[in-house]
């Protein structure tokens, strides 16, 4: 890995040290004597499955939570922030998965939010612009227009604005929580170069990610958490993805991604002809067969999400035609569901699930009929059905009535998938099904997708078809029968997965080679 920079000074004192951190929530111990430190110029990976204690650790670091035992030292002085604002003032910034930008304000206003330069209460626009520009320059984003509203920016650009905000407050420890889960490969690489730049400038970077390949490519050191304890830490030189995965799950996960054996595809169940929608999707043709998993490989902004949304009639179609079997369809999502087509949203929290509703309601929302007579719902029957799926998919929850927002990301995703199974759809449109979920859950989701395409071995359920969108190319290569590349709003013809390599997909998706 030639691009990995060594920390400037191997002997440099850590800028931030946590010793013996312990945090209990009632009877459960979220952190149990965790040691953690980061040096200036170092990019340290913080990895662990959901529930391993990463979020708890970060919330304490960010001043959002209090620890029960242990000490924190920042820059040689005891550090005990009372609030996130306190932590920022001290020089520790956490950039969360859900970005905290004011959509209707401009880039420069967002960067200077809460500490606008001014005189007599009036904002000094010039100074604000200079400060924003300086931070963006430092990140290598000189040409970002500082007067545009943040809501027009891509996910990656928004991330840059967030980091610029942290920089302009003079932060020296920057923590990124799953920054690439919303980014395509290209944007991720741009972000990595920003982070390397930060580290070279002497910033300490803590990098939290589920993508172990990313971690080994980007970070210098790592701390792995498991069940609230440190399962391993040290330099990343010579540590493989498999080693890290083993530390996280506490057992060797051999062949997390094993290529599945492909069955014989059947009749065409979904046809898309010359589909165009919105600004992003310009032209897509595809034919999906029964029992087939067709992958769409595309970067963020390539129009892949828009393709699924247009097929499912969530977004208006500009032109083109969607056919399920022999029927032309596509007036509304409810009609698509009636035709046996279901969509899994990439935005699990915002769109996929109703957070305040129960597991049972979320799972059965699209098909509540049949739980009682004449429009009534029998809770008993609804809960029994839900319990069946909870068992079948091994969803970890307190029961059908638990609120879905109390579940971990992986289990939430299983609830969203179970909804499609409960609805008994024939065609599944899956948009980034493994985003933001832990390693073990990912493997389960892959198995689940593969088993859907196989149907019921007993023959009582015919094979389903899957259209799978992902920016994680190894995932596509492992799961799909065929893969088509999406680039700048155009879908290129699909080829058998065996004809692709990860490198080839990346080249095709970034346009460095004709697909």
């Amino acid at each position, binding site marked *: 890995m030639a691009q990995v920079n060594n920390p400037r000074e191997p002997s440099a004192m850590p800028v931030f040290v946590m010793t013996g951190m312990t945090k209990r929530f009632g009877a459960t111990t979220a952190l149990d004597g965790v040691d953690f430190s980061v040096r200036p110029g170092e990019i340290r990976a913080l990895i662990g499955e959901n529930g391993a204690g990463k979020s708890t650790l970060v919330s304490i670091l960010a001043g959002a939570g209090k620890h029960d035992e242990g000490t924190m030292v920042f820059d040689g002085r005891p550090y005990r922030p009372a609030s996130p604002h306190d932590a920022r003032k001290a020089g520790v910034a956490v950039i969360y998965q859900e970005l905290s930008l004011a959509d209707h304000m401009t880039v420069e206003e967002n960067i200077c939010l809460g500490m606008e330069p001014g005189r007599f209460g009036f904002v000094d626009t010039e100074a604000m612009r200079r400060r924003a520009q300086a931070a963006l320059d430092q990140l290598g984003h000189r040409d970002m227009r500082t007067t545009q509203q943040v809501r027009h920016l891509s996910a990656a650009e928004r991330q840059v604005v967030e980091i610029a905000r942290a920089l302009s407050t003079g932060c020296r420890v920057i923590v990124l929580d799953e920054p690439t889960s919303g980014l395509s490969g290209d944007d991720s690489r741009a972000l990595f170069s920003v982070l390397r730049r930060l580290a070279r400038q002497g910033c300490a970077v803590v990098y939290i990610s589920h993508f172990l390949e990313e971690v080994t490519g980007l970070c210098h050191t790592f701390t792995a958490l498991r069940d609230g304890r440190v399962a391993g830490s040290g330099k990343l030189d010579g540590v493989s993805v498999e080693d890290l995965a083993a530390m996280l799950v506490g057992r060797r996960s051999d062949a997390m991604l094993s290529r599945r054996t492909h069955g014989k595809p059947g009749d065409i169940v979904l046809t898309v002809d010359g589909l165009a929608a919105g600004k992003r999707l310009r032209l897509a043709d595809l034919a999906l067969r029964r029992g087939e998993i067709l992958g769409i490989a595309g970067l963020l902004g390539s129009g892949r999400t828009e393709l699924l949304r247009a097929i499912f009639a*969530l977004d208006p179609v500009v032109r083109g035609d969607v056919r399920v079997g022999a029927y032309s369809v596509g007036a*509304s*999502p*409810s009609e*698509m*569901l*009636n035709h046996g087509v279901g*969509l899994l*949203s990439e*935005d699990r929290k*915002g*769109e*996929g*699930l*109703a*957070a*305040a*509703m*129960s597991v049972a*309601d*979320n799972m059965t*929302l*699209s098909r*509540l*009929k049949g739980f*009682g007579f004449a*429009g*009534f*719902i029998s809770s008993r029957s609804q*809960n029994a059905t839900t319990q069946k799926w909870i068992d079948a998919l091994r969803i970890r*929850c*307190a*029961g*059908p*009535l*638990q609120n879905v927002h109390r579940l971990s990301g992986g289990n939430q995703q299983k609830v969203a998938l179970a*909804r499609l199974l409960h609805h008994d759809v024939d065609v599944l449109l899956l948009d980034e099904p493994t985003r933001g979920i832990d390693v073990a859950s990912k493997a389960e989701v892959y198995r689940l997708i593969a088993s859907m395409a196989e149907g019921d071995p007993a023959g009582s359920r015919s094979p389903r078809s899957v259209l799978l969108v992902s920016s994680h190319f190894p995932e596509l290569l492992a799961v799909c029968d065929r893969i088509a590349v999406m680039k700048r709003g155009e879908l290129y013809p699909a080829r058998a997965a065996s004809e692709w390599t990860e490198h080839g997909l990346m080249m095709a998706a970034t346009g460095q080679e004709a697909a």
Partner: protein
Amino acid sequence: MNARSENRFRSLSSAAGPLLGLVAVYLLFVAIAPSSFSTAANIQTMARQSTIVVMAALGMTLVIVSGGIDLSVGSVIALSTVVTAWLLDRGSASPLVAAVGGVATGALVGVMTGFLITRLRMAAFIVTLGMMLLVRGAAKGIAAEQKIDAPITFLNGLLASGGTWHWPAGVWITLVMAVAVAVLLRKTIFGRHVTAVGSNPLTARLCGIRVDEVKLIVYTLNGLFAGLAGLMQFSRLTVGDPTVAMGKELDVIAAVVIGGGSLSGGEGSIAGTIIGALIMTVIRSGCAQMGLPNWVQEMVTGTIIVAAVALDRLRQKRL
């Protein structure tokens, strides 16, 4: 604690907070107000006084659970009284026809409101702010800016005070409606759809729920219940009054909110709403019995609204 009992506990505690508040307020007045406060007659009076707000709040609960709001309820109540009186007086209609006419007018306004919100994609707050003025104006126009006198019929007996244990029909009608709406909201597919639309409209759409259809029905039902509230109002007034129930919509919204309804949607219950309305009535009645001036009642009621919502937030934080 398993999930079932956890959920029971939670749904219980969400109505238990307001219920505790009601009991506390009631006992407070029993202790400090004159003994006339705690008589059976006064309890019946309070039930009668709550009827109009409760009836309208049944529809408002559905609206608020679906993530909407309706500011036109007070005006619809007035229009309903005017239409009922007009039909009785000028149209010489039978009381039943007049009542149905008044209620149907309310439902019609609800259809219009729902149509504007769903088809023109306008914010409910703006649409119903407009409807509030529009409907009030229409009521005044029909009544030529005067009260419409109507002959006394059985309609006026709906909220008349009965014997000590013989409560008027209007109270019973409202209770039956309340049970029906509670069942609708908790036990039917439509109710689950209403909750889903308020909880997360994007999820609802993803699950094939016809969000616009659900909203249209919700606003129509809300208009219907506002019309029924207008009928109760007419029963008390015996005239059609285009200026009646000014600002009543705020009492109605307050009842829902005190009862645990969330203005961001997805939360609220009929039991809570009724308790919310009763809390306000008890305060009013108690203050009146003690001879406290109107401004004291208003300040106490305002405090209760803010405190109820603040307590609810605290409770949610803890859970």
